[in-house]
């Protein structure tokens, strides 16, 4: 398995979510990832790009959403960058808490964390937000030293 990287720069529109998902599906088809893992990555990417378009860039078409896809022998890593002001991921309420179950929104980050092995955010004041998501090819072999 050789390493491969793809970069996309997309407009801040709702239809960018489908464009990014299609590009990721095409990328994953060459990566040898399992069907189950690909489903989870697709879910996570759609949520991350939705957040970047809607909450980060607030659908300002002068701002782009930049997606980076990296495939290595150990994992697939996806980064989604927006030009928004950022947020505190730890302050996002747990959508499975009793008081939040019937809320209409707030499940995107929960899905990203549910379907990926690692999710973290890099927030630069004035410089936008990057969410980095990692899916390991074989989570059982991971010993926390990669």
């Amino acid at each position, binding site marked *: 398995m050789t390493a491969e990287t793809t970069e996309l720069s997309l407009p801040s529109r*709702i*239809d960018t*979510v*489908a464009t990014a998902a299609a590009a990721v599906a095409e990328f994953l088809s060459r990566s040898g990832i399992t069907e189950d893992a690909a*489903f989870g990555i697709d*879910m996570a990417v*759609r*949520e991350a790009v*939705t957040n970047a378009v*809607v909450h980060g860039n607030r659908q300002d078409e002068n701002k782009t959403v930049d997606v980076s896809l990296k495939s290595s022998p150990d994992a697939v890593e996806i980064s989604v960058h927006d030009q928004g002001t950022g947020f505190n991921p730890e302050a996002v309420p747990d*959508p*499975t808490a009793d008081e939040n*179950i*019937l*809320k*209409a*929104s707030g*499940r*995107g980050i*929960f*899905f990203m964390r*549910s379907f990926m092995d690692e999710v973290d955010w890099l927030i630069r004041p004035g410089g936008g937000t990057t969410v980095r998501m990692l899916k390991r090819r074989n989570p059982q072999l991971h010993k926390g030293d990669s």
Partner: protein
Amino acid sequence: MAELNINERQAGDVTVLDMSGKITIGEGSVALRTAVRRLLEEGKKRILLNLGGVGYIDSSGIGELVSSYTAINKEGGQLKLLNLTQKLQDLLTITKLLTVFDVYENEADALNSFK
């Protein structure tokens, strides 16, 4: 072709919406919201969503199911779900929404449950 196709039929006093496609942010979620609001305006408050043909749903679509459920309950009606795919059932399980929705695998059972 529309992202989400919705076919409406009446089974006694229950309105069944047979849905196929995707319930995702944008067109799919809006189509579901519009259909449910229209039924409520028409006084149709017993609604069964047949989701057997829905191959994909995102957090926005899940949110729209929740909004539909709360809007119909508020009007004194009932919303039930039929024919969930395994993926959708998994998503409702991890979000704990499977405990909220009344879910059926068989249409006759679902229709009887409204009586």
